[in-house]
């Protein structure tokens, strides 16, 4: 007995031992042991088998049968219609001969026409019979009932299958949709006409692409159909041809069975062509390789099938819901007419159940557990439920869903035949004193208590807190509500954000009387499903189509890069702008793919998120050269920084830490700050993506507040800058000079990539590059370099002997790299002089003035400006004084016109060469 158990799906395939799964005995007849089934599947305590026969004559015969059935049915239709026409004609001719209505009693008259009519009634009855039977014969995929799914080891032999009762055996092909059956037949015909010996998964997959739903699925996955078909054709052409007869392969039979179980687990009603896709891929490695080349894997296909299932389920739910909502009263009255009019409440509120009845509330996906928990609290006697969760996780959606369920009456007894009414707090409080607001609230609570059919919902309930009527020890509004809740006069839902709950509600009377239900941010898969349920709206509005990868990307990127908002709201927010942008850029009916999402998010967060383009990858590979065009020497430092940037861009780094953190050591004026600027420019595209903090300004402990802000509203310089644009280079100049407590902050930043600011918000540093510079040991470095020591050796003794006196060892350890900058040599300074003169040239060129310099002059200038202690810094001053000042004087004295040339001669003096006169 051969058997194959699929670990992932839990399906066990059992092949017939007599025919080895072929379904045929040696002489070509049907195998007696398995009646031609060949292979069966065992899944959750049930057997599944397929009695689909595939061979050319049988397919023809099946078509013939369908044809005959169709013609019998149409014959019956026609006969019924003809009978009616005959009757009508008889009535018409009878009306001509007499005006007496008694004459129309056709059942009392004898006529050939009436005979035809009565015979046709039989045909009508036959039509009713046929329609009703066809409806009944459409087997639906039968769901295994709760508790009936038996796990455990399977009876692994064929006799067990034969013995088991009908209830535990399911014939799968009866539940196949017409399209699915057609594709199975087409696959056979394709294999047979190509002369292939067996119908393989690839035949089935090839025919699948003709199906509309499958085509839509692949277009959601952004697959180029021509490319896919081309590749499949190549595979088909490579197969052996010339077989005399075509048989159904073992894998093909397995696919039919697994497609059914697939549909079962997706709770579909019918097995559609899409259900073939995953089983096909599992059985043909070439196929999955082809799709992998097109950037598609098992998970993606699975999620898109889910998406289709979700839309279908939403539509179905909607239909059921519309049916159920017919019975909900459309006024403020309950069905038993025991309620009381509530004019004041109506003035300050919005009726959610009415909105739900007229379908004005959006659909809520997921969140079944939270709603169950809310109902559980109500059933266990609580009269107030407080939903607590961050903004944007969908607290209002949950309340909306409860309103929808109240319309369907799919709720606990306490909510049945009630209205859910949202109290508008801002309206309640506006324009009146606290005492009057309290009066209003008391009246409303009275009304609710008397009416008896009202459930209140108060969004942002913290607004009720600490509103008092002024006098000392008077009640605040929330206590009015909480005492009413405690007396069980009304049922109330409320919502508050996490921090407001902690700040205003926890521990107060209201917090104690209401049950708290936490609404957490959904995980990525749930968020994707929530988005999928909303996509249809934007697609219809902007006439664009979202691919699956764009939705997944939107969730993934917002989860990663937007930290002050929460899923799913933050992903939904950007969806609309993505749709608008795609519609504008690509035109209507275009496909929105992951790149569009990355594009929009890049714009919003200023983070380069798009796929690495050819141009950019070239830039990254040659980053050293690019940096060296601005920086002279310091090869080691540049190489180290470039390597870490490449790692970051290709996402080969730990996501929980900053992109990179470096400590630059070296004397002043050797290019530490310049390198930081160059990195900001070459990596982020602009020098301005840099926050520069002079740590000497943070020498006292109190300056901590300046850096991270305080709870009373002062915004921190560092945290605000990073919160607004998370993709930044942070330059910490003279790092060691800051107060040790401030330095301790950076322990956490460099380790976890986040920091909590004075207001309690978490600021994300994972997209930052942190560069700290320090002058510690500058003299030591100069001395050692002069003495000819190796850079590595200098670094070691610097870290061990000098650095640890100023910084804690754990902080030193946190840096990805400690880079020692060499003091500049004279040739270096010459090169720097050239770079600086080039800058002057660019400035002059903008004015239409030329600039030339003599190498000897450059040398002279370099010698004059070089100072081993201060590096290249005096050089800048020198160029300013000697060259820029002189040029400025000449310009002001009108001695310099357009097309003139400024010359720097071998003595480093500035001269002017007159340009040609036009």
């Amino acid at each position, binding site marked *: 007995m051969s058997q194959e158990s699929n670990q992932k799906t839990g399906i066990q395939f059992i092949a017939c031992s007599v025919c080895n799964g072929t379904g045929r005995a040696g002489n*070509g*007849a*049907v195998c007696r042991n398995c009646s*031609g089934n060949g292979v069966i599947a065992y899944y959750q305590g049930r057997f599944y088998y397929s009695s689909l*026969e595939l*061979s050319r*004559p*049988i397919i023809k*015969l*099946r078509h*013939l*049968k369908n044809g*005959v*059935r169709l013609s*019998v049915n149409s014959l019956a239709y026609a006969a019924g219609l003809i009978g009616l026409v005959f009757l009508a004609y008889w009535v018409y001719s009878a009306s001509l001969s007499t005006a007496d209505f008694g004459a129309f009693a056709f*059942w009392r008259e*004898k*006529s050939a026409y*009436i*005979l035809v009519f*009565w*015979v046709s*009634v*039989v045909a009508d*009855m*036959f039509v*009713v*019979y046929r329609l*009703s*039977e066809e409806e*009944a014969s459409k087997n639906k995929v039968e769901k295994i009932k709760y508790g009936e799914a038996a796990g455990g080891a399977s009876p692994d032999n064929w006799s067990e299958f034969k013995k088991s009762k009908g209830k535990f055996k399911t014939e799968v092909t009866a539940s196949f949709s017409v399209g699915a059956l057609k594709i199975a037949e087409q696959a056979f015909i394709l294999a047979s006409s190509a002369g292939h010996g067996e119908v393989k998964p690839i035949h089935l997959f090839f025919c699948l692409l003709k199906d509309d739903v499958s085509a839509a699925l692949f277009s959601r996955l952004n697959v180029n159909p021509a490319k896919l078909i081309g590749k499949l054709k190549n595979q088909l052409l490579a197969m052996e041809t010339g077989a005399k*007869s075509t048989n159904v392969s073992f894998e093909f039979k397995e696919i039919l069975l697994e497609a059914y179980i697939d549909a079962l687990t997706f709770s579909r009603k019918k097995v559609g062509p899409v259900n073939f896709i995953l089983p096909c891929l599992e059985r043909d490695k070439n196929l999955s390789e082809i799709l992998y080349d097109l950037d598609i894997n098992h998970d993606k296909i699975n999620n898109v099938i889910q998406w289709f299932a979700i839309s279908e389920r939403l539509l179905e739910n909607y239909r059921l819901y519309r049916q159920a909502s*017919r*019975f909900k009263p459309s006024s403020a009255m309950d*069905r*038993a*007419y*025991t*309620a*009381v*009019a509530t004019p004041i409440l109506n003035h300050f509120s919005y009726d959610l159940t009415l909105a739900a009845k007229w379908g004005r509330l959006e659909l809520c996906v997921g969140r079944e557990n939270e709603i169950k928990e809310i109902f559980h609290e109500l059933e266990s006697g609580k009269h107030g439920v407080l939903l607590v969760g961050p903004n944007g996780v969908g607290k209002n959606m949950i309340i909306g869903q409860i309103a929808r369920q109240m319309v369907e009456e799919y709720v606990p007894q306490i909510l049945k035949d009630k209205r859910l009414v949202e109290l508008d707090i801002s309206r309640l409080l506006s324009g009146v004193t606290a005492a009057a607001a309290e009066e209003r609230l008391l009246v409303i609570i009275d009304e609710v208590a*008397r*009416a*008896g059919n009202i459930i209140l919902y108060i969004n942002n309930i913290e607004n009720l807190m600490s509103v008092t009527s002024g006098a000392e020890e008077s009640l605040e509004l929330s206590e009015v509500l909480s005492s009413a809740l405690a007396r069980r006069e009304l049922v109330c839902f409320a919502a508050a954000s996490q921090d407001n709950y902690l700040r205003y509600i926890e521990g107060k009377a209201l917090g104690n009387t209401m049950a708290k239900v936490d609404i957490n941010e959904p995980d990525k898969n749930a968020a994707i499903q929530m988005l999928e349920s909303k996509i249809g709206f934007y697609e219809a509005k902007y006439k664009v189509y979202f691919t699956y990868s764009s939705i997944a990307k939107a969730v993934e990127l917002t989860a990663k890069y937007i930290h002050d908002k929460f899923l799913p709201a933050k992903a939904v927010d950007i969806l609309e702008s993505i749709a608008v942008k795609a519609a504008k850029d690509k035109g209507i009916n275009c496909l929105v793919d992951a790149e569009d999402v990355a594009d929009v998010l890049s714009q919003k967060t200023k983070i380069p998120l798009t796929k690495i383009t050819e141009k950019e990858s070239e830039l990254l590979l040659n980053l050293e050269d690019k940096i060296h065009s601005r920086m002279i020497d310091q090869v080691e430092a540049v190489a180290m920084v470039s390597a870490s940037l490449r790692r970051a861009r290709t996402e080969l780094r730990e996501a929980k830490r900053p992109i990179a953190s470096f400590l630059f050591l070296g004397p002043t004026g050797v290019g530490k700050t310049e390198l930081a600027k160059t990195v900001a420019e070459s990596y982020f595209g602009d020098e301005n993506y840099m926050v520069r903090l002079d740590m000497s300004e943070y020498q006292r402990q109190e300056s901590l507040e300046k850096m991270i802000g305080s709870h009373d509203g002062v915004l921190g310089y560092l945290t605000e800058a990073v919160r607004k644009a998370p993709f930044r280079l942070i330059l910490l100049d003279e790092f060691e000079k800051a107060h040790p407590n401030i330095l301790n902050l950076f322990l956490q930043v460099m380790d976890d990539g986040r920091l909590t600011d004075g207001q309690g918000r978490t600021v994300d540093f994972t997209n930052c590059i942190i560069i700290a510079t320090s002058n510690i040991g500058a003299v030591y470095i100069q001395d050692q370099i002069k003495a000819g020591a190796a850079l590595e050796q200098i670094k070691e003794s610097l870290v061990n002997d000098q650095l640890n006196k100023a910084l804690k060892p754990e902080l030193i350890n946190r840096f990805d790299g400690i880079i020692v900058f060499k003091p500049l040599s004279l040739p270096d300074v010459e090169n720097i002089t050239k770079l600086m003169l080039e800058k002057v040239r660019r400035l002059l060129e903008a004015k239409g003035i030329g600039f030339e310099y003599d190498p000897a002059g450059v040398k002279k200038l370099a010698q004059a400006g070089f100072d081993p202690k201060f590096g290249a810094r005096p050089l800048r001053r020198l160029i300013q004084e000697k060259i820029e000042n002189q040029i400025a004087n000449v310009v002001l004295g009108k001695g310099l016109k357009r097309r003139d040339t400024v010359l720097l001669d071998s003595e480093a003096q500035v001269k002017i060469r007159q340009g040609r006169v036009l």
Partner: protein
Amino acid sequence: MSNSFIFYSVKILTELIGGIAYFPVWWYSRGLVNLLLGVKDFLVNKQKALALIVWVKNIFKPMYAQYDWQGILISFFVRAVQIVFRSIIMLFWAILGLAAVIFWLLLPILVIYEISFQLI
């Protein structure tokens, strides 16, 4: 291959003939059950729409929460009138449903009778 072809053609033929032969039996068995279930659903929905049972259950409960004795008294009579009125509508629907069932049961007999009446 060939014997399964014969097997299949025989099977299809019997299915066709059997399908037609089953028709009269179906009319009084599965067809009738389907109709009864349909009429039941129809009546249940009509009852729900009329809220007849809700009115009967609440006959002693005052309308509009008027718990004084006048309110209770007036409510009782208004509710009684409502119940009578709604029952009449419900009865109409019930009769309609019953008529459909009777029509279903008698239709074949009527057709046979009429055809024979025409022929004789």
